């Protein structure tokens, strides 16, 4: 029998930290990030072992819960509410299908997204076609499918009028309106301007042509909006246009589309307070929009349908990016640098958020001022500039919270391949919803001229 070894003490990296008498915080926020050991009941370690690292993880339960919260906020204040899922925010088919099952229409901004929505089983009449570029073919298809075409500029309006003359169906359309809502920067690149009368020019042109069914008015005032008053102003101005149409042409529009842009709980770079404290709730947005519509001259029994296209606020919280630490090193000034296996090519949002990154197991009470780098051979590959982070070593798992919006659509195949995405269903079972890329995935699109073979 072997001698029983003396029980050894668990080892923690030796650490020395200078005490800085910095600016005191009256809030005394915790500086040590608590670990996230599991997601919807499954341990992060086991997910990484099963599906590889790095890995995007989405929660179906969270997607549905957030949608229902948002819907309830509006439907409890207004009789006719319709959400349209913003495909560009996350167009993984599984995510789209979940929102469609919950009752969302589709909101698309390109011919590709339009095809995706049709392939996901969304009826043409429940697809809103936004965006500044729709090809003639796209427009034709949208007219034939009775989709709601949101006209962005006069060139598109004339293209649509031209099509209407040659097609049997009448286009169903809305105009996109941009306006001053008191925020800076003012978004004036989408649609027709309200203040300078361009929106009215477009409406007059449509009404006089008698070739287009003008069903609605749309606006998209901005993104990551932290003030609800801007929506109130936008709703008032759209209502004003609608009432004007009624007076001038006796034309009643069917819907007002307030677009998207609700802030999520992520923290913007340079923000003093965390996003979880500053982002308005769905109730705040709903109250502002609905109260403006109710105060307008709409007759109570002829209220238009209220459409919302919020994307970010519905999906951000339901996504995580997990992975492992690749290495640690010291920078020239003595600060710690930790390199992780996911870079800015996968986490596009790290350019504008201070992402909430956590260890995925309880490791150490000690933290150190750390810069977190991705694995790319690029100086810009920084996930967090400065963060008080525990002492993770090579191979230790980490989790980044709130990555559901824009990352699975804006990610780049650059230097590394894009990894798997899994969805955890409400019963706690995990499913691969997008395969990880391989060399084969990329080579499939390439051709070698014969003389190079």
């Amino acid at each position: 029998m072997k001698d029983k070894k003396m029980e050894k003490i668990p080892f923690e990296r030796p650490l020395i930290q200078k005490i800085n008498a910095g600016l005191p915080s009256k809030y005394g926020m915790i500086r040590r990030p608590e670990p996230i050991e599991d997601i919807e009941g499954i341990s992060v370690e086991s997910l990484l072992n099963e599906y590889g690292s790095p890995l995007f993880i989405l929660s179906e339960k969270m997607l549905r819960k957030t949608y229902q919260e948002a819907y309830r906020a509006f439907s409890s204040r207004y009789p006719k509410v319709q959400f349209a899922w913003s495909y560009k925010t996350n167009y993984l088919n599984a995510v789209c299908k979940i929102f469609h099952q919950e009752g969302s229409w589709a909101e698309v901004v390109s011919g590709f997204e339009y095809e995706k929505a049709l392939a996901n089983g969304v009826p043409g009449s429940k697809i809103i076609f936004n965006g500044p570029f729709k090809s003639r073919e796209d427009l034709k298809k949208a007219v034939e499918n009775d989709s709601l075409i949101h006209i962005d500029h006069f060139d598109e309006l004339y293209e649509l009028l031209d099509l209407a003359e040659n097609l049997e169906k009448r286009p169903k359309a809305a105009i996109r309106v941009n306006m001053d809502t008191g925020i800076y920067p003012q978004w004036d690149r989408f649609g027709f301007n309200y203040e300078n009368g361009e929106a009215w020019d477009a409406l007059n042109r449509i009404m006089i042509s008698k070739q287009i069914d003008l069903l609605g008015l749309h606006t998209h005032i901005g993104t990551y909006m932290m003030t609800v008053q801007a929506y109130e102003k936008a709703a008032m101005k759209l209502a004003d246009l609608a009432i004007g149409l009624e007076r001038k042409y006796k034309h009643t529009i069917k819907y007002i589309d307030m677009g998207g842009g609700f802030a999520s709980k992520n923290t913007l770079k340079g923000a003093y307070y965390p996003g979880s404290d500053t982002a308005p709730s769905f109730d705040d947005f709903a109250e502002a929009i609905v109260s403006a519509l109710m105060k307008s001259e709409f007759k109570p029994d002829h209220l238009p349908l209220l459409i919302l296209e919020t994307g970010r606020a519905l999906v951000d919280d339901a996504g995580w990016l997990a992975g492992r630490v690749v290495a640690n090193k010291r920078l020239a000034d003595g600060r710690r640098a930790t390199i992780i296996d996911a870079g800015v090519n996968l986490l596009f949002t790290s350019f504008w958020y201070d992402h909430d990154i956590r260890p995925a197991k309880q490791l150490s009470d000690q933290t150190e001022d750390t810069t977190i780098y991705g694995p790319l051979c690029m100086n810009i590959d920084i996930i967090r500039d400065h963060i008080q982070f525990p002492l993770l070593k090579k191979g230790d798992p980490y989790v980044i919270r709130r990555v559901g919006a824009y990352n699975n659509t804006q990610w780049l195949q650059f230097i590394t391949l894009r990894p798997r995405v899994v969805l955890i269903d409400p019963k706690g079972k995990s499913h691969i919803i997008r395969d990880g890329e391989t060399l084969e995935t990329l080579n499939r699109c390439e051709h070698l001229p014969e003389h190079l073979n």
Partner: protein
Amino acid sequence: MKLKKNIAISETGFVFDPTTGDSYTLNPVGMEILSLLKEGLELEAISARILEKYDVEKGVLERYLYDFLGLLKQYQLVEEDDEN
């Protein structure tokens, strides 16, 4: 490598450098290493003591030990041996 003579270490892991007026905190392993340095032990001996007591592989310890000593140099808490 030796700890500067005037560096004060408290039992609870605080370090004070009277030359600069800077204070530092240590975690328990850091505290142990600094104490061994103060006793005048060489790196190899320090490494052996830690390996004996803690659950850590030699290669891993070596990396962290050098990293730690690098920080001590950065903070100017140690002086190089004369022959260097």
